[in-house]
């Protein structure tokens, strides 16, 4: 076929299941035409525009919010903490974060007041004429100074969470190899900034329409502040999230709500790019130390690691991020004796939060750099050292989980085989490994726990409903499509289960007034876990329609014709713990994740020895996805995630000043890769089915973020002999290291 993409014929349902083929995206036509309605495209009648007044200092008393007497305040509404109807909190895991700072600010850019006006320009103008007068208090910006400091930010000791994992004991003899690895912030950089509209309802409640991953989070976050639950949340088309729209939209919604309540009108808040960069959550900076003991073959006998994570000024999701970091800090390697410790501490900086990978990219960076350090110390090939230690079926992890459907060796072999092929495309960069360009190749291997940690799913019990109305089936789910394709893949799963044409199945709008709580759209859980609930609901619908099996000629239409004049049929399914997972949250022992994805990255690059710039040539990713429900969508996830990983590796640096304020708060100076920076992508999909996922699917949203950075570091080392253990490997860091070698 000319395009190499499956083109669907109208009758394909008769000959093949819609799972595993490239059903075109349901949202494709509206997005390519520019019709898809993102939050800023929606303008309710009488809509006002909101803007935020923010703290100029990291830690300070608020003395006054001073209005410029020379400004024309007509038509401007101002909201402060005094206007909050009930509790001044945006609830997440704890109640420590206020909607608006009241007497003290705890991080720069913290919201202090809000304004609404009839136009966006007027609102922004008003913000410029409101000055927050403060008196500085001592601030902690460096996370290494936080624990036990006399300056209190959170609790008694400034620790959000402390975790330890122990396996086995200690070993004697062998070679001790120690290293320290660190990473800075990373910005999610969704191309659509944060945005939300709050619309007053007739029952004194509120409707929210906005850009988000998790509509039910907003309801839970705002109920304590509003003092009621009369609200519904509707997801608009969402221009990327990557974790950045997991929890932060609750803050935007809280602010829009306060302005809507005070003015009695709909209020739209759209962040400017610079504001979004300075004020919203980032990936947690971390410092990781690893001490390992290996024998002369390079076999691991002991692996001790410690991570210090900077949570910022409020708790947000930091304890969970730390948990995932620690659970990935052993890497995909077997070792009988392991001792892992982690602390997440508070600083007077903007809170860090969810970002694709959620702690794992930091951990995998350290683990993979440490494996390279072992290889370098012992003079063993870095790929060989990994091969000797990789986890295999039947091995147990640091938490005592016995592994099945383990893809480590398979993805390694597949990626290395793909690396034997020459580059397909035109050479994107000059060079050729001569003169000013040094050429290198690096390999990394990562795993990623799919879905929530431990008992997470059993606790939240995600729900999905299916509704048969006429001849079409609606899937009602809170799992949002943020570009990852769930409005296409869920219908594929349901249609496959029912044996019908996928075009007759669609996801209903993600409105909390109509859909059940499927849990949040996070943690690589949507397809694997909620998709499983979709499949279960489809089975229930089949039973309700008395269709025996999907595989036979179901004669769906005949069954429907019998029901033609009946009321719509609705079934609801809920995640059910099958008892196969055991997890102890107190001891961090047991089955940490339902299953794991496995991925190998091979990075080919040139280093410009004159500028220190890294020029990517090719990224090969071989990833165990369990089952690709839609291969084009899966490939898109893997390629996009890999490029975010390559950006993390070499160009994405957040520069902060002594107040913790992001200085490079523009797309001019916070650099994400362009089409010229991006390499040729070779994506190999490996399918080692997970029995708990729909049709064997594992979660794949986050794993491509984990491996590219360490593979790039190894490639730079191979090309130039320089060893970089700090991310990002900017041209400046590369040049400094090159000069040190000379």
């Amino acid at each position, binding site marked *: 076929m000319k395009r190499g993409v499956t083109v669907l014929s109208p009758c394909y349902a008769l000959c093949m299941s819609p799972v595993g083929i490239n059903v075109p995206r349901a949202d494709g036509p509206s997005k*390519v035409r520019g019709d898809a309605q993102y939050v800023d495209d929606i303008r309710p009648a009488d809509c006002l525009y909101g803007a935020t007044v923010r703290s100029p200092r990291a830690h300070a008393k608020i003395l006054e919010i001073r209005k410029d007497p020379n400004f024309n305040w007509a038509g401007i509404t101002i909201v402060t903490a005094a206007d909050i109807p009930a509790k001044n909190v945006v609830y997440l895991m704890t109640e420590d974060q206020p909607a608006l700072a009241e007497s003290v600010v705890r991080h720069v850019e913290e919201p202090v007041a809000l304004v609404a006006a009839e136009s966006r320009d007027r609102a922004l103008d008003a913000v410029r004429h409101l000055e927050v007068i403060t008196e500085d208090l001592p601030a902690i910006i460096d996370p290494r100074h936080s624990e036990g400091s006399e300056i209190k930010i959170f609790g008694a000791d400034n620790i959000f969470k402390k975790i330890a994992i122990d396996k086995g004991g200690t070993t004697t003899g062998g070679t001790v190899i120690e290293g320290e690895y660190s990473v800075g912030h990373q910005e999610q950089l969704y191309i659509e900034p944060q945005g939300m509209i709050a619309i007053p309802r007739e029952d004194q409640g509120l409707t929210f329409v906005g850009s988000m991953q998790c509509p039910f989070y907003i309801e839970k976050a705002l109920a304590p502040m509003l003092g009621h639950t009369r609200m519904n949340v509707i997801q608009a088309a969402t221009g990327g999230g990557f974790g950045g729209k997991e929890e932060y939209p609750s803050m935007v919604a809280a602010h829009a709500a306060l302005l809507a309540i005070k003015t009695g009108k709909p209020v739209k808040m759209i962040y400017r790019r610079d504001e979004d960069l300075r004020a919203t959550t980032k990936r947690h900076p971390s410092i990781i130390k690893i001490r390992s003991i290996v024998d002369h073959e390079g076999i691991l006998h002991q692996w001790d690691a410690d991570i210090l994570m900077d949570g910022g000024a409020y708790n947000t999701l930091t304890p969970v991020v730390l948990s995932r970091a620690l659970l990935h800090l052993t890497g995909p390697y077997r070792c009988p004796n392991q001792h892992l410790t982690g602390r997440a501490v508070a600083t007077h900086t903007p809170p860090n939060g969810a970002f694709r990978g959620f702690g794992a990219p930091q951990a995998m960076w350290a683990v993979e750099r440490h494996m390279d350090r072992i290889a370098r110390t012992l003079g063993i090939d870095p790929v060989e050292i990994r091969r000797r230690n990789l986890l295999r079926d039947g091995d147990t992890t640091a938490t005592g989980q016995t592994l099945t459907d383990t893809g480590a060796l398979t993805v390694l072999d597949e990626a290395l085989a793909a690396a034997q092929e020459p580059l397909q495309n035109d050479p994107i960069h000059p060079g050729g490994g001569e003169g000013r360009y040094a050429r290198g190749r690096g390999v990394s291997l990562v795993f990623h726990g799919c879905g929530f940690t431990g008992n997470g799913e059993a606790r939240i019990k995600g729900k999905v409903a299916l509704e048969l109305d006429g001849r079409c089936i609606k899937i009602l789910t809170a799992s949002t499509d943020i570009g990852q394709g769930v409005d296409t893949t869920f219908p594929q799963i349901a249609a496959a289960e029912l044996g019908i044409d996928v075009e007759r199945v669609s996801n209903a709008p993600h409105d909390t007034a109509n859909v059940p709580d499927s849990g949040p759209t996070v943690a690589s859980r949507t397809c694997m876990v909620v998709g499983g609930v979709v499949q279960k609901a489809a089975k229930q619908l089949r039973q309700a329609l008395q269709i025996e099996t999907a595989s036979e000629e179901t004669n769906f239409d005949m069954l429907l014709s019998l029901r033609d004049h009946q009321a719509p049929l609705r079934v609801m399914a809920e995640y059910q713990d099958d008892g196969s997972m055991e997890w102890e949250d107190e001891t961090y022992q047991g089955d940490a994740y339902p299953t794991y994805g496995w991925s190998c990255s091979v990075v080919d690059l040139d280093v410009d020895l004159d500028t220190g710039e890294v020029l990517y040539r090719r990224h090969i990713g071989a990833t165990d996805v369990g089952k690709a429900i839609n291969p084009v969508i899966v490939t898109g996830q893997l390629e996009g995630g890999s490029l975010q990983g390559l950006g993390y590796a070499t160009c994405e640096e957040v520069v902060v000043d002594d107040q913790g304020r992001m200085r490079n708060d523009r797309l001019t100076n916070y650099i994400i890769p362009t089409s010229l920076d991006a390499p*040729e992508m070779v994506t190999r999909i490996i399918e080692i089915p997970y029995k708990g996922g729909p049709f064997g699917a594992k979660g794949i949203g986050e794993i491509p973020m984990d491996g590219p950075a360490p593979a790039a570091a190894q490639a730079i080392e191979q090309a130039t002999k320089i060893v970089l253990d700090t991310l990002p490997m900017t041209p400046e860091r590369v040049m400094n290291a090159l000069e040190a070698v000379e």
Partner: protein
Amino acid sequence: MIEFSLNGHAVKVQALPMTRLIDVLREHLRMTGTKEGCGEGECGACTILIDGVPVNSCLIPIVQADGTEITTVEGISKDDRLDPIQDAFIEYGAAQCGICTPGFIVAARALLDSDPHPSKRAVREALAGNLCRCTGYQKIVEAVVCALGED
């Protein structure tokens, strides 16, 4: 009064001369297919064509639009028929979250109008002013190259 042609239709706009073209399109004319990602000409989400040349509409004061022919994403498809580039974007999965998609499609249309047979390298160069955070760009490049065969 500023007059220009928008997707083949004559338009008259009353606006302050320094009003950004993107605001005229989105707010005055309610043509919201053109997106704003950064407001400083870095992301390319607001790419439109002025007399066939791709520009960032967030950097253009409306006064500069006077007497020009402007094409936005809404003018790329003809009579409800998608442009081959749009078809290819759907088939290749080149649109994920979709917020950058209108800008890419407009920029790709300009490329193919000026060079019907660009190399992959030329496609990457022509689209280097448009940022995408979802795809890693490869599917976008493939879609544009594929659309060549349809043009």
